[in-house]
């Protein structure tokens, strides 16, 4: 968890908003650091987290989580974290013929289905305890990421339906939060992705956007962050992200030999909070 990002968003692990849908969006850069941030944040805030990880394996998140101060294995053993590993499950679904429904069973189907089994998995994972007393604070659903579902044969509408159902259950009924990552594919004319992104942007309470720097590649500073909430006017600040810390430099440092900048902006992050 990055304390600077918490300050920017005015949230602390003690005081967590409820019933919110947060959209994480990245364009020309990798926004997965935001996913790691929110994962560690909600685990520290003592919330029950259901993490649908479709892109990387459990050990990857675990190692990064340890750098950010949380242990995913401990959280999983305690029951605080329900981790769905998409890559491993896809192999199970594809090769072993199973009778019972599987969250990723659309991989076996020829036609575009819906994400109902995945929704039922989430519903089951975040179901409140029967004994009435809440061991954890509000439930949280974290998805990394939704764009990969489009690559696997789901239509944008199916994914939007899935988020809609999850929102009804998690945000409204259980008063929890949802955080989802979507890639922004402005240049690549991916219409399905645009539909998904626009639809989700409309529904979300908070949008965090990580963009590559428009001016080019700079070695040390990874980007700038322009926060603005959906209600209030924007205040802009520049900040960088490097090896686990976000810091606020007053000016961009140029590295030695970096005075020739290419216009590719791959590793820089400009964070917009909308």
């Amino acid at each position, binding site marked *: 968890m990055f304390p600077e990002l918490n300050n920017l968003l005015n949230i602390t692990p003690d005081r967590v908003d409820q019933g919110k849908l947060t959209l994480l969006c990245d364009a020309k850069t990798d926004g997965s*650091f935001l996913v790691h941030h929110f994962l560690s944040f909600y685990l520290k805030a003592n919330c029950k987290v259901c993490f649908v990880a479709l892109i990387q*394996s459990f050990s990857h998140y675990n190692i990064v989580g340890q750098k950010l101060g949380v242990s995913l294995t401990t959280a999983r053993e305690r029951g605080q974290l329900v981790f769905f590993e998409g890559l491993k499950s*896809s192999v199970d679904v594809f*090769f072993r013929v199973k009778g019972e429904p599987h969250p990723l069973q659309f991989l076996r189907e020829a036609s575009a289905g819906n994400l109902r089994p995945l929704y039922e998995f989430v519903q089951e994972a975040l179901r409140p305890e029967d004994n009435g007393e809440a061991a954890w604070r509000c439930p949280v659903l974290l998805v990394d990421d939704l764009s990969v579902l489009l690559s696997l044969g789901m239509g944008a509408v199916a994914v939007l339906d899935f988020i809609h159902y999850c929102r009804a259950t998690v945000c409204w009924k259980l008063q929890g939060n949802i955080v989802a990552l979507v890639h922004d594919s402005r240049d690549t004319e991916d219409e399905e992705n645009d539909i998904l992104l626009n639809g989700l942007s409309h529904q979300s309470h908070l949008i965090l956007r990580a963009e590559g720097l428009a001016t080019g590649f700079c070695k040390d500073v990874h980007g700038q962050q322009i926060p603005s909430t959906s209600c209030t006017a924007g205040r802009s600040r520049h900040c960088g992200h490097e*090896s686990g*810390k976000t810091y606020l430099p007053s000016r961009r440092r140029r*590295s030695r030999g970096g005075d020739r900048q290419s216009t590719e902006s791959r590793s820089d992050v400009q964070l917009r909070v909308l």
Partner: protein
Amino acid sequence: MAAAAASGTGTGTGSTGSIAAAASKNNVTSFQRRSPRASSTDSGGSRLVSIAGTRPSVRNGQLLVSTGLPALDQLLGGGLAVGTVLLIEEDKYNIYSPLLFKYFLAEGIISGHTLLVASAKDEPAEILQELPAPLLDDNCKREFDEGVYNHETSESNIKMKIAWRYQLLPKMEAGPVSSSRFGHYYDSSKKIPQELLDASKCHGFFLPEKISSTLNVESCSLTHGYIQLLQFIQKIIYEEGFDGSNPQKKQKNILRIGIQNLGSPLWGDDVCCTENCDNSYSLTKFLYILRGLLRTSLSACIITMPTHLIQNKAIIARITNLSDTVVHLESFIGSERETNPLYKDYHGLIHIRQIPRLNNLICDVSDVKDLAFKLKRKLFTIERLHLPPDLSDTASRSSRQDLAESAKLLGPGCGVMAGGKKHLDF
């Protein structure tokens, strides 16, 4: 300045310096070796099992294998991580990407890894016969050193006088390194000795042979060829214990998978032919499930794909997102750049499109964005593309004018000094 010169002399020293600093910043013992990517029950991380031909990454302890090209290893942050996919976007006429494919396989043979070669066009046995021979340290080293030295000393004399900053920039490894167990150099003019091939274990998948067998899995919008290939790979991984399913095996080994021309019409996929194809998710589903297989086993995969044939840009973006490391080769053959004097020493450009962030928040992105490759008589080298300064008084006017015009044509993609505009008279 002295520190800069010291850090710039060798790539090894420079990189370890920065890595040591990064490690101390993290405050965590990042040196944890992970063997299978899905952490098995007994991986406390402390048991160091060394597999031939691999080394742990100094940044995060991730197990790496060499791609067969030490220069490419260095650009990718030390090597290719075990459990990941290296996607090579082919050059237009498919001349240089098979070389990278063969280097990867040859490296596997030299290191004693098991190979799995899949192709729809060439017989795997023929591909293996054409692998390049490794460079032997004693015989060829002397020949090469002379060639490399002549090239370097003439340039270095010019550079040292005025443009001394060039010497401080990190150099790509251009010469053979003697007896490094990780990463070898290959002689593309010679074939690999037969005894090395016989000693190695290779599995071949040739699509026209396999296509006739029956399907076990119900059709799930994946092309028949892809389903067959996935089943074949899964069978090999399971039977030979690469996923840790066979605990009796004492010696762990890496499986190197090479898939050639994936996505081309020869695989039965029409993603390269039309914009709105019937099975538009076939290739992406294949990549996803393949990555799932790789993450749960000790294997690394190289895929060459003719992405220049894919009409739908959205699919290319999705494929890039679904792969871990993506390298794009752009050759100059047939393009206007072939006659451009700026590029006369090189055969093409190499773009590192994506490097994965594994077990880490950031990745080792190389500083150098403008890289070019060339295939010398025997070696495939990757170098930073730059214009040497035009310093000599006797440079003819015509060449300077060509350079000036070419500099305008070059565009922002390369770091180029606007050389040759004015002749300085003193």
